[in-house]
């Protein structure tokens, strides 16, 4: 497994985790819990952005492993 594949796997897990947190944030009525969930979903979004950039760089270096 290349590094690219591994990073893509981590990326997918993070996306699913972010989606779950956003889901909780939308259903939860309690103010504090809602804020915590949405704030952390946002932080995860930042990390996802960084990782996606990195995946882009990796694919540039090794075009034969491009895409899923």
């Amino acid at each position, binding site marked *: 497994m290349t*590094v690219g594949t*591994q*990073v893509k796997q*981590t990326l997918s*897990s*993070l996306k*699913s*985790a972010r989606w*779950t*947190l956003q*889901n*909780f944030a939308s*259903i*939860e*009525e*309690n103010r*504090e*819990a809602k804020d*915590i*969930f949405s*704030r*952390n979903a946002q*932080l*995860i979004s*930042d*990390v996802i952005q*960084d*990782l996606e*950039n*990195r995946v882009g*760089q990796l694919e540039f270096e090794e075009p034969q492993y491009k895409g899923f």
Partner: protein
Amino acid sequence: MPEWFNILLRSAGLFFLTLLLVRIMGKKQSTRLTFFDLVSVIVIGVTTAAISLNIVKNLAGGIIALAVWTLFPAAIYLLAIKYKSVRDIVQGKETVLINHGKILEDKLLEARMTPEDLLGQLRKKNVFAFADVEFAVLEPSGEVSVFLKKDRQPATAKTLNINVGSESVPQTVMLDGIVMDEPLAAMGLNRQWLHTELEKAGVAPENVFIAQVDSAGQLYLDLFDDAIQTPRPKTKELVWATLKKCQADCELYALGTNRPEAKKMYQRSSGILSEVVKETEPLLTK
């Protein structure tokens, strides 16, 4: 008309009449229930029974008596709500029995309680050592309310300094196989969402006895068939475990890469993710 028919009519009629009267009397706070309330309830019961059994031949007279004993207490209760002076006369005040850990013997005498009575009432509140009590008050209903000394009170998350996150009340969305739309709407969800969640759990709606949804939208089920084991929903724990895994992955990538910018990026991501893990821990795990 024959005797038994008379009794049947009276009993049935009084049954519904008393039901109606009791609903009119409404709910009473049990702490304010005095001995007199008990007496009036007994009188109502005996009067109703006597009329039903035709012991009291005069039906009109019986119903008048019943009306007095139900409506007068209700009226006094209403007056008591409006005027504090009426409250004090009719319902009495609380008596402080223990203050600052010291038993007030003259108050006990006033309340006509023996020390054995006091200790018995404390034991009803699971207090076996009177030295644990900081404050105790005798309510008008005869019950003793106890406030324990701070170090004898059961541990709460706050006293142990544990952050457990905040959660709201879970809503019961299915009872006895019937979907309750009101609690669903209170959470901002609808039947479609519920059906989707049940499909996800692989359970048909007809099989569900009780279904509850916690404040984050997790569904907890109990089925009619007790032989089937439904797995407890673990979405929260799974999300938390996923986040921890991704954080560890980022650390691994940071070690594995040679490029300095990539290394820095991975380290930063790992830092952010460990913060997220720490912050969501009380909500997702406890």
